[in-house]
């Protein structure tokens, strides 16, 4: 047999035979790193939930479910009920969705079905991306100095108390902020509608409006719902912009022009000043509520989106 000739011709290559075991060790180490990183990522999320739960334990023990139903938030009397903030968050988020819906829907339809190219669609896309990139603190700042006076003058005309700050101001700012997200969600949903379905519609002589109304919207309804849900998920956790224009009043708003407070902004305003464990614990429980709501909203929204994608 001419084994010597056939086995490694090059000294350096032969030398590698001895590297075998160190390679295996490195291989194992590499896999270990990968798994370790994945476990760290998972434990951070789990850790967030557990820490919030532990942090709010005092308040959960003290108030139980009453925490959600009670409308008194009085740190001096050690009475903590989150209802005003829950209502504040829900009303601003829903109002923001309502305001932003036609705009984001229109821009999505316009961009994905009418104007696929050209300078106007380029400008529109660029603007939507820029809007998405502006930090929320700047929206809040702008809102405080530009939008609040405008709303105030409207309130004077309409005969409301001219706070300027309040539910409606926060909702407008929120609406501007979620338009980019909602619009890109809507485009994605429209993209999920199979091309041949649309073409079938056009082939039957339908106008674009009819194709949109009768084919695209019914097909995409699930996606639109989940898009709304995910956009809501964006809006309700927004902190800074809302904090600066909502008025920070810890009572349930009487109408949409009243000042109010949202869950995120009460944490932002009072967390560092909270004296006493129960006060801090109550604020953390609001954080826990935010976490849980975001969990539910995103889980449902993402599941529907995934299903849509698979169906295609």
């Amino acid at each position, binding site marked *: 047999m001419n084994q010597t000739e056939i086995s490694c011709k090059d000294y*350096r*290559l032969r030398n*590698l035979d001895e590297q075998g075991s160190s390679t295996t060790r490195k291989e194992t180490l590499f896999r270990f790193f990968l798994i370790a990183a994945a476990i760290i990522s998972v434990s951070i999320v789990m850790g967030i939930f557990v820490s919030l739960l532990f942090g709010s334990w005092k308040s959960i023990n003290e108030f139980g479910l009453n925490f959600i139903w009670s409308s008194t938030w009085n740190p001096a009397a050690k009475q903590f009920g989150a209802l005003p903030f829950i209502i504040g968050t829900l009303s601003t988020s829903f109002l923001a969705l309502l305001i932003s819906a036609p705009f984001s829907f229109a821009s999505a339809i316009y961009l994905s079905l009418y104007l696929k190219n050209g300078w106007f669609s380029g400008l529109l896309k660029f603007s939507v991306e820029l809007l998405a990139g502006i930090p929320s603190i700047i929206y809040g700042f702008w809102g405080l100095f530009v939008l609040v006076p405008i709303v105030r003058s409207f309130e004077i005309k309409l005969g409301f108390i001219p706070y300027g700050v309040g539910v409606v101001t926060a909702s407008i700012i929120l609406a501007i902020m979620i338009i980019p997200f909602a619009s890109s969600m809507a485009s994605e949903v429209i993209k999920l509608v199979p091309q041949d379905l649309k073409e079938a519609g056009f082939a039957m002589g339908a106008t674009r409006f009819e194709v949109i109304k009768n084919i695209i919207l019914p097909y995409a309804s699930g996606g639109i719902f989940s898009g709304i849900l995910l956009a809501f998920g964006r809006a309700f956790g927004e902190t800074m912009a809302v904090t600066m224009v909502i008025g920070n009043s810890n009572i349930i708003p009487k109408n949409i022009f009243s000042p109010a407070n949202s869950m995120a902004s009460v944490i932002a305003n009072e967390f560092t000043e909270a004296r006493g464990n129960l006060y801090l614990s109550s604020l953390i429980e609001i954080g826990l509520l935010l976490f849980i709501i975001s969990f539910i909203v995103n889980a449902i929204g993402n599941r529907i989106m995934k299903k849509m994608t698979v169906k295609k």
Partner: protein
Amino acid sequence: MENDILKIENFYAYYGTICILQNINLRFTKNHAISILGPSGCGKTTLLRCINRMHELADDASIKGKILLSGKDIYDTEPMLIRRRIGMVFQKPNPFPTMNIYDNVIAGYKLNSIKLKRSESDKIVEESLIKADLWEQVRDNLYKRGTFLSGGQQQRLCIARALAMKPDILLLDEATASLDPKATSNIEKLINQLKHSITIIVVTHNIAQAARVSDYTAFLYSGELIEFGKTGDLFTIPKDKRTEEYLTGKFG
């Protein structure tokens, strides 16, 4: 036989419980070209991937039997070491997109962190590119990314990359399937040049190509080795009816 570089003995390959290859027995002679021929799905690519232990990369893959490289069972050694000695060229050219041509050729050394002097690596690159018949076309562009090359040139770059490792055997898995006729004939010419200095195993479903490039041909059909012999014999007087039917275009 003295010159058997590769022996396959009672070899079986599986995906999960599905048997892809059954009871394959083959001997390959040193410095010849052998083609493995058969209709798609017959297991010819799996056989090739078993020879350099790429088959086991699939999650549920398993094997039974022996493959002996110069008398030593390749399934007793580190797969990495086997793959360095048995080079492979794939169906689609796959040069490394982030490396320039020079680095692509020397990639086997770089990726295995084998230290080379500049003069040595220069020599290996030049030799390999000359062997792959690409040197004249790229010598002035060695430090450009390999992706600007044509498909045929990219495939020859991949051959140079495999040759740079100075392998005992070169495996070509339908290496011309994605190329145009001109590039295909160039690669075939190259195989005919190379086969005097290295053992080449070619998987193809192109009957004419097997006839043009190989000294021996193995015909596989649904996981079984039907016939193996000198290419000339197998093509003119096939012993098995299935071989004859395949060669005359009755199926496949």
